[in-house]
């Protein structure tokens, strides 16, 4: 219970912060809208996204807000339908990577000794191996990456950065008096880690989740763009793939190729804005300052 209430306390403070911080508020609104679209895509799609029945290569009009593809599909409907996959990739990869990062980073810091040495070494090695070329090589053998395979590959390559950051912060907290006191009271390791160690690290953990989610969205889009994803699913990356393969830019259908990128950027900005806001919770020195307050402080 105490664990829950301390987490709740942190969430409440974050919520108050959201109301003050413009970046965080903008990020939250973007994420909320995208989540609604993800949950109920059919509310927003005027046409069947996969139907190839409209005039091919049509420009902007009220019935086709972003025109049509050269196959005669409605670009706007495809964009809405593609939202789900990118948001799901972000949330799932972000969540699993964060669980791994927290587990490995905190185990390393809390155990110390040989466990720490081994886990840190593994983390550092995974961290320095170039991820994008590695993912390309793996998916090249499998011809095309299904949704869950892509999740797997992104998690394998995405957890190490967070694990390293969390280990460093857990190390700096490890020998604080209140932790020593908890141990002296004879509390179990689980209790100490969950109730005393993790709550103060919440902002860093959330920041890691957002960072991993952003990484997942951009990397998945890149893979799908070069045709290494499953090209028959509805997603922003596959839209880019089909647009590029049909030379959408040269044949005068720039919206087909450019709109999915803007959609990815909207999701990406939502995550990034929240991320910087949480950075600022963790490190108050980074918060924006007004010029007036700065002058007063200097004088």
């Amino acid at each position, binding site marked *: 219970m105490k664990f829950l209430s301390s987490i709740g306390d942190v969430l409440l403070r974050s919520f108050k912060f959201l109301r003050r911080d413009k*970046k965080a508020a903008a990020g939250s609104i973007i994420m909320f809208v995208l989540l609604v679209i993800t949950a109920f895509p059919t509310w927003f799609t005027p046409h069947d996204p996969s139907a190839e029945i409209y005039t091919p290569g049509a420009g902007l009009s009220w019935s086709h807000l972003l025109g049509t593809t050269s196959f005669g599909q409605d670009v706007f409907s495809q964009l809405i339908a593609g939202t789900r996959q990118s948001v799901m990739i972000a949330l799932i990869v972000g969540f699993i990577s964060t669980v791994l990062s927290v587990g490995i980073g905190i185990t390393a810091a809390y155990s110390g000794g040989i466990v720490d040495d081994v886990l840190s*070494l593994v983390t*550092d*090695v995974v961290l*320095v*191996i*170039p991820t*994008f*070329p*590695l993912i*390309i*090589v*793996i998916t*090249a*053998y*499998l*011809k095309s990456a299904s949704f869950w395979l892509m999740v797997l590959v992104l998690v394998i390559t995405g957890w190490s950065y967070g694990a390293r950051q969390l280990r460093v912060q857990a190390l700096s907290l490890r020998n604080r008096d209140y932790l020593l006191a908890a141990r002296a009271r004879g509390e179990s390791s689980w209790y100490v880690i969950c109730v005393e160690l993790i709550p103060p690290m919440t902002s860093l953990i959330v920041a890691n989740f957002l960072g991993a989610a*952003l990484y997942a969205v*951009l990397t998945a*889009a*890149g893979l799908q*763009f*070069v*045709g*290494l994803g499953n090209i028959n699913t509805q997603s922003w990356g596959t839209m*880019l793939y089909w647009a*590029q393969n049909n030379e959408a*830019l*040269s044949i005068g259908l*720039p919206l087909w*190729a*450019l709109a999915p*990128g803007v959609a*990815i*950027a*909207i*999701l*990406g*900005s939502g*995550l*990034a*804005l929240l991320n*910087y806001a949480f950075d600022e919770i963790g*490190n108050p*020195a*980074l918060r*924006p*300052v*007004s*010029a007036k307050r*700065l002058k007063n402080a200097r004088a």
Partner: protein
Amino acid sequence: MRFLVRRLGFLLVALWAALTVNFFIPRLMPGNPAESMMAKFHGHVNPAAIKALEVAFGINNHQGLISSYFEYINNTMHGNLGLSLSYFPIPVSTVIMRALPWSLGLVGISTILGFVIGTALGAIAAWRRGGILDNVLPPAFIVISAFPYFWIGLLCVWFFALTLGWFPILGGYTETATVAWSWGFVGDILWHSVLPAFTILLTSIGGWILTMRNNMITVVAEDYVKMARAKGLKPRRVLWQYAGRNALLPNLTGFAMSLGFVISGAILVEYVFNYPGLGFTLLQAVQNEDYPLMQSLFLLITVAVLVAIFISDVATALLDPRTRSSS
């Protein structure tokens, strides 16, 4: 010294890990795609080349996993990367050497420029806290960094090449031009590199601005910066000689890593522009199922990144006495 020995040890462990990953990936894949690739080449290729491919990809495994593992490591250590399948019978190393200068030139120069400009802007933004730069740059680049970087390339192609017609759409040089060390040809290369270089610059600069700004904010609060100010030194001197130098140190590793990544080319930017560097070569190898070329490129990229990180460790140890004593 102990610090450097530790880092050298790490370099070797990471190299070994990369080699091992490279060795096992084709073996772990379902249905061994390499086998169908080999079937195509039997009869056209001399037996020694077939043998090397078999060792590298684990086909006809009559010699056992362990011994082929060591033979593979031995082959790689001697720079024997095998033959490219899509450019057969040209060795992989020749294909790589042909593409390398393009990536080094394009990505190398734009990475260095991005680092220098980004770091300078970040330092100035932090120095003038609450000024125009400080208010405009971070949010602008938060948004830019959320775009997929290849998409910025698409946008540039559409706007500057197709709509305005200022720059060529793709390629590293005009196909019909005579390849020679003439001013005309060099100019042609530069003209083709403007858009990809601009794309890389725009997408890499934000990271440097933000990290430098954040480091600077921490350093500016240090006592020695106050001391320098109190001594009445010129602000410019305090900014660069006192605060900037120290704020730069944590960024060195990141810079070294991105220099290592120069080898990989900005993979997707090269792809968008059909720029004949290593990243484009890697994706072509994927499309042509040229597994030896693909795996050698992955290995080369990894080695470049690891060596770059090691060099930055050495540089950090030389520049920052704290690293030496703390280990």
